[in-house]
């Protein structure tokens, strides 16, 4: 929805994405996206997390409550007033995820959120993702090249190769008894390219 597709159609909950910009924005506000290369605004950590709430005209009190609670959840409260573009990669990604879930989206899209991070931060972010999914009932669609990570956190897996779906199903099935040979080779850690 951020850019126009070269081909094909985009459906959300079975409905095509509306052309009307107001209805598009309304729909967009039910979703959040965290990019692989996070961009945090040149502002405080606190203001970054509050951004989506301000865009939705939440009251000041509600914003304060939500932002403080989220920063505590992601272990960033001590850095709340630090300039966000001075954070480390792991800290920045934690803030980006907090910012994305602050307004309780129905759908959270994560594009390789743990790429290039150290194991400690990967574990922290994976726990955050699980927690958001479990406690806030947010549907999470996450792109990863890390088969072990997909195995650790996914309920459902879609295996893509060169932009095409090879196989999809429950994580248990994909990782223990896949239908496709290509999937089997990949989950066994062998090269398929």
């Amino acid at each position: 929805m951020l850019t126009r597709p070269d081909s094909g159609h985009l459906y959300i909950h079975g409905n095509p994405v509306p052309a009307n910009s107001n209805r598009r924005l309304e729909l967009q506000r039910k979703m959040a996206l965290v990019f692989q290369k996070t961009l945090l605004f040149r502002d405080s950590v606190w203001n970054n997390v509050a951004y989506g709430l301000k865009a939705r005209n939440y009251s000041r009190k509600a914003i304060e409550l939500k932002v403080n609670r989220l920063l505590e959840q992601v272990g960033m409260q001590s850095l709340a007033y630090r300039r966000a573009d001075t954070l480390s990669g792991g800290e920045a990604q934690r803030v980006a995820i907090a910012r994305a879930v602050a307004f309780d989206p129905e759908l959270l899209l994560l594009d390789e959120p743990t790429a290039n991070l150290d194991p400690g931060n990967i574990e922290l972010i994976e726990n955050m993702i699980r927690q958001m999914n479990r406690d806030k009932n947010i549907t999470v669609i996450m792109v990863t090249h890390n088969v072990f990570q997909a195995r650790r956190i996914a309920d459902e897996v879609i295996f893509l190769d060169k932009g095409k779906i090879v196989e999809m199903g429950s994580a248990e099935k994909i990782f223990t008894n896949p239908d496709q040979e290509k999937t089997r080779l990949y989950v066994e850690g062998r090269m398929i390219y």
Partner: protein
Amino acid sequence: MSQLSEGIFEAFRLIISLDADLLQIVFLSLRISGLSIIIGTLIGVPLGTLLGLKSEKKTRLASKLIFTLMGTPPVVAGLLIYLLLSRMGPFGILGLIYTPTAMIIAQISLATPIIAGLTMVGVRSRGKDVVETALSLGAGPGLITWTVIKESRITILGAIITGFGRIIAEVGAVMIVGGNIAGQTRVMTTAIVLETRRGNFELAIGLGLILLILSFFINSFLYNIQRGARSN
């Protein structure tokens, strides 16, 4: 060398004596350049942001035009505005020629392309990522534009400083459209030209030094704002 030292002495004498004519010239210079930079910013920043957010392909001609206008010789800008505002020109009926308003128009025409061009370059370097992030967080068009401007604030302040530097030191355009009338349209730069022509080099150097001191303080103020923007 003696003329230079006498010029420095003259500058201090003028400052200490608070000469009424000098104060009038200084305040007029500040009023004209100040208003011009404010109006130039109000036009240049939104224009530069708009162009910076559009794809380079679509704005190629506009970019080339702005870059060309950034280098317009002040006398050429002054001449064009003179032709537009002179009694025989299309806007002659407004009676603006040889007034501070005409000088402000001339300075706006010089500052705006610089502010728009440098803002465009700044926005282009990071704007697309900022827009995508803001959009992904549910921001509407107004908030997105404001976020892009806020994120480019260091470059924008740099653009304003550059624009101000150009117009406060400019003489050609204000001389043509203002006419350098004593007490009405005489500003620091045109007064320096006049005193040099008269052979009053000490006074000309003195005025030049005052102009440099004023420019230093104004640019220091803008620089501190920019530094604040960088560390906030």
